[in-house]
């Protein structure tokens, strides 16, 4: 697995490069800004790009924009955005433009190499990834006549995992359920919440997140 890393903080960039290297992930480039990132991807497309959001020159959202550009230019290159912001808006923006092979993970995960590598592997497989903390906030927010109350506890767990971008198979693994059972839960959830969007695994993430944010 070859990865290009973009992070403007030298401290984190070097730490992450070492961390990923230790986990047998080959970091071909470690860069500090979006333009260098795009150039590196153009010359030597990796399997996955791991990028910060806020980088030079404007220190706003050039990492996110660069991720979307890469997904458009190199459909085979997956992107994982590492973010300091607990904002579903950014995750939705990423997934809206790239329904597959893109992920939004909080930087907090740098303390858990397994979770980090799992996310990189998932986007590399073409899955979507949304940080569980982001989803927990959305699922747990107070709602008027909360429609989520119509779901069983198990269905709510399945809903959250769907929103994190997990496949039925992945959800089954996490909850020790058969794929068939998961499929049943998913159908029930979609019906109860009247989410009319695609039931296709890698397309439904955006629909669920949009539902949770509305």
């Amino acid at each position, binding site marked *: 697995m070859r990865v290009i890393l973009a992070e403007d903080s030298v401290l984190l960039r070097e730490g992450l490069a070492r961390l990923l290297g230790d986990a047998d992930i080959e970091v071909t480039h470690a860069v500090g800004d979006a333009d260098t990132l795009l150039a590196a991807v153009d010359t030597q497309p990796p399997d996955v790009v791991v990028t910060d959001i806020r980088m030079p020159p404007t220190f*706003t959202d050039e990492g996110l924009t660069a991720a979307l550009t890469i997904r458009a230019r190199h459909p085979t290159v997956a992107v994982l955005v590492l973010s*300091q912001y607990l904002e579903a808006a950014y995750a939705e923006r990423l997934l809206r433009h790239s329904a597959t092979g893109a992920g939004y993970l909080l930087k907090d995960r740098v303390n858990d190499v397994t979770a980090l590598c799992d996310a990189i592997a998932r986007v590399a497989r073409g899955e979507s990834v949304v940080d569980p903390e982001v989803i927990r906030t959305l699922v747990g927010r107070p709602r008027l006549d909360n429609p989520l109350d119509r779901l069983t506890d198990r269905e709510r767990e399945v809903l959250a995992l769907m929103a994190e971008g997990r496949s039925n198979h992945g959800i089954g693994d996490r909850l020790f359920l058969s794929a068939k059972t998961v499929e049943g839960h998913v159908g029930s959830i979609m019906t109860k919440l009247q989410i009319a969007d695609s039931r296709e695994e890698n397309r439904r993430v955006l629909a669920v997140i949009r539902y949770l944010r509305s």
Partner: protein
Amino acid sequence: MSGMGTAVAPFPLDQVAGREGRRGTAALASVIAAAGGVACALSIAAPALRGLPLHPLDQAIHTGVAAAYIGTGVVALLRRPGNATGLLMAAIGFLWLVGDLYWIPGALAFTIAATFALFYGTVLAHLALAFPSGRLPGGFERRVMVGLYAWMLVNNLVRMLFFDPHAEGCAGCPANLLLVVHDPGLERWRNDVSSYLDTAVIVAVGAVIVRHWWRRTRAARYVIAPVVWAAGPALAYLVTREVADDFVTLSPAGARIVYEFMPAGLAVWPLVFLVGLLRTRLDYARVGALLPQLAGQVAPGRVRDALAATLHDPQLELLYWSPITDGYVDLDGHPREPVASPGRTVAPIGGEGGPLAVMLVDEIVLQEPALLQAAGAMARLALENERLQAEVRSQLVQLRSTTARLVEAGQDARQRIERDLHDGAQQRLLALSMTLGQARARAGDGADPRLRAFLDHAADDLQQAITELRELARGIHPMLLTQEGLASALKALAERAPLPVEISAPSQRFPDTVESTAYFFVSEAVTNAARHAAASVVRVEVTVAGDEMSVRVSDDGVGGANPATPGGSGLLGMRDRVVALGGRMTVTSPTGRGTTVVARLPCG
């Protein structure tokens, strides 16, 4: 006040006598009025008592002229104490009646009457030249009057020395006490010379009056015009009479017209004087009528024009006091020293906060000190008003720009702190977290359980710190607001709110300060609704109409919120933010029926 005390004369009110002077004047006026009454009564009674009653019309004209001068003189004396005009007028009235002494038997009365019967004409000329101040305006006029009085005295005394009434055909007349010698040839010669000289003198006096008029300023002409015109009929009468006396022989009807009817022309003068008084009253009324025109914002120069019109002085100049240069400036802002010049006086217009302006005005206006004062008061109000408005406007502009700068500075400070946190503490804690994570992984399952517990504990605390710091940074300035705008930031605000929040906002972008003011307004209102109002839902509605953004936040809580109560400081802070941006905030919070706060922000 520095620099103006020497150059500017005080308001010329010393023309108005004090209370004691007034009392003296009133007494004098009473005496004159009483004497006038008696004189007029005698003038009417005497012919009847002597058995030679006049025709009522002739009598009315004759006595009426005297009454008009004496009466108007009394009015003038009361209105302008210390001004000789009134006395001169009264003197004309009395001198007019001197001829009536003929009716009193005895040589003395006859001699006095014969000597002074024509003196009123000289005083009339004096009055024409001395109006309105009562003083002769210049050396030339003074010399003319001295000469005239001397001529009248000498001419009449000389006449009396050779005048024998009996020889002239008046058998019943008393004797002339001044008679020295009567010689018909000498008398005829003297009479001829005197007639030509008298006529010449009258014409010369007329010329002097015309010259007097010609040399006045426009403002002065406005004041003396009625007097000069009224001198016309008087001169006409005197010339006609002179001609009739000496050069032609009149029919009885012609004589009656000249000697009995034409004196009515003399009465024109007092009437004109009364009209002048009325005109002054109208000027006062005009001062009042000007006030509404000068209220509010007036164009520069408007006050000067108003003053020039009211005081009938087109050359009037208004110099404004400038605190910047600590001196007076003209309308164009050029420094000018207010100095009186010949014929022009300086009248200051002082406000409560020090000098406002000075008028350079024709000194004729000093004759109407009350009018000058009224016009000055009017100008003061207008100028003070103008100055206060300008002051308030400039303060407002200054305040606006100051608060705008403060708002921007606050905004910048927030963004800088957020950036510093992001680049500094947050990155360091994340790096630390990463290292700790690696340490925990390296320790593995086989490590000392106590060491693992310590490491787990440290990781939990660190995660807590990272979360708290993230929320702190977000509270100081949400990055989403800068990147995606108000609608997106409000949606994110709703996602983490402790109660349901419904957002309706346009996705367009606005100036930074507007977006951030609106955002924190909503944020504070939502916090209030959750903390104090026990609300179950909050609705946020942002709309834009023209250059104004309306942000409405309403909840279904307990209501009763009031910025004026001690607990309302949150609302006060919200209002301060809104007002600092030039907006307005309203709070509607009836007890038990929820709270609605609305901010209207200029967003153009």
